[in-house]
């Protein structure tokens, strides 16, 4: 479903962010991307979601080489993913409902159909009673859940989250992780970048990055990661 083959990424005016990365992710997998700060986790997720183009190598999404994708088609590819950004990227000038409705509007879904879906997504993350609230009035954990509601409202097959528990205390973090696991249980491919190895589930695949290199790639790496 997602295949990287000898992918390199260098940002203009910066050193190599990713070097010679190859791996494969199957549909329905739970995948963690770990590594120190600056290891290249965010960059890897951005390459998957077509937010950045690889400098060289091939990125295949559903057998489509996205390095050569025409710019006009990129938006349609991006819609296949549900994205939870490291910095939320919530819009603070509108209420929770309108934040979650944005991806639907982009897809041309409006009116009562959109309303139904937005409430279903808010319900899933436990924010149904906050639809009229402004994001700024929510706690950190609630804002993260709102971001997740926005990511899943279009029912994407792939959910990508960049350090979703980064700024949360342990109870909130566990709650958020529980949410992602629930999505994976119903068949969604879930890819999570995290530096907190305690969160990692035993059955998950782990991509560990170190200064832009992929150092470990294993199906079940809980014990080793904890030791590392």
């Amino acid at each position, binding site marked *: 479903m997602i295949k990287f083959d000898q992918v390199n990424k260098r940002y203009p005016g910066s050193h190599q962010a990713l070097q010679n990365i190859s791996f494969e992710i199957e549909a329905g997998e739970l995948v963690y991307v770990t590594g120190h700060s600056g290891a290249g986790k965010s960059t890897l997720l951005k390459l998957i979601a*077509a*937010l*950045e*183009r690889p400098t060289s190598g091939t990125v295949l999404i559903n057998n489509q080489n996205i390095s050569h994708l025409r*710019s*006009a088609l*990129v*938006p*349609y*590819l*991006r*819609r296949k993913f549900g*994205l939870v*950004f490291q910095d939320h*990227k919530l*819009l603070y*000038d509108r209420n929770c409902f309108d934040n979650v409705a*944005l*991806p639907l*509007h*982009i*897809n*041309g*879904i*409006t*009116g009562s159909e959109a309303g139904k879906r937005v409430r279903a997504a808010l319900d899933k993350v436990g924010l149904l009673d906050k639809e009229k609230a402004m994001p700024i009035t929510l706690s950190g954990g609630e804002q993260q859940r709102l971001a997740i509601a*926005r990511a899943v409202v279009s029912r994407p097959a792939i959910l990508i989250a960049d350090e979703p528990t980064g700024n949360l205390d342990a109870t909130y973090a566990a709650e958020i992780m529980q949410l992602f696991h629930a999505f994976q249980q119903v068949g969604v491919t879930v890819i999570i970048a995290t530096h907190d190895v305690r969160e990692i589930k035993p059955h998950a695949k782990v991509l560990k990055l170190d200064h832009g290199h992929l150092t470990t790639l294993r199906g079940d790496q809980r014990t080793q990661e904890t030791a590392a």
Partner: protein
Amino acid sequence: MKHWLNQHTQALGLVLKRMRKNLLATLLMFIVMGVTLSLPGTLYVIVENLNRLAGSMQTDPQISLFLKLDADRSTAAAIGKKLDAHPSVRAHRFISKDTAWEQIQQDAETAAVSASLERNPLPDAYFVTPEILQPDEIEALQAELQQWEGVELAQLDTSWIKRLNALLQLGKKGILVLVALLGIALIVIIGNTIRLQILTQREEIEVSKLIGATDSFIRRPFLYAGTIYGLGGGLVAWLLLIGIIRLFNLSIADLAELYASGYRLDLPALETGIGIVAGTVLLSWLGSYIAVNRSLSQLNYK
């Protein structure tokens, strides 16, 4: 189809909501644009009116043929015959010096002047209506008549109209230049307004692009905003124009009464109004398009 319509009603609804929220700013924008455009609009209406006025006069040019003071009856009669025979002359009217003198004496306003004169200073005169209408041909006829024996002066009555016409042509060119300059100003004004709006919505645009919005999705509300500014500005310009012409007509009515004339400026035709509004819409659409595209190109997937 429904999907397509959805996207448009959604964008339009969004823009109208934003404009209602910033009602004062929106109305000010309409007024700025309207005032900007009413200037060339007013000039255009005035020039058009003068043009029409000049046109209506020009349909009946006349050559006044003043005979020499010492020309006798037979010379006058000979000239009358020649005029009869001339193919370029449609009609002519003879006013003898005596008839002219009588008229002057009877006219209350000129009676005082004539009374102070000892004898009739007026020549015999023919008033000639040419068959032809081309200005240069009429001038040729005038030159020809000037050469005739017994003719003191052949005067073309339309020469001031010609001058007026030349001025009006110049005026029209001036308006074109003005429209072009103000058109550019309008594109800049709109472009800048839209650019500021893009800045305040930068986050939304950025997030939207990241989660799969197409460029046209992002462009759409701004293009609608530009179109609405154009519509509002064009309508204000149109209303101002009508108001200004009405105001002019109030003073013209007083003036025209003095000259026993019912002259007044015609209000611009409906097509002119539609043209102004359509032109404004087009310009501000263009301004918005340029502004949005510049911002979009900074966000593109590289």
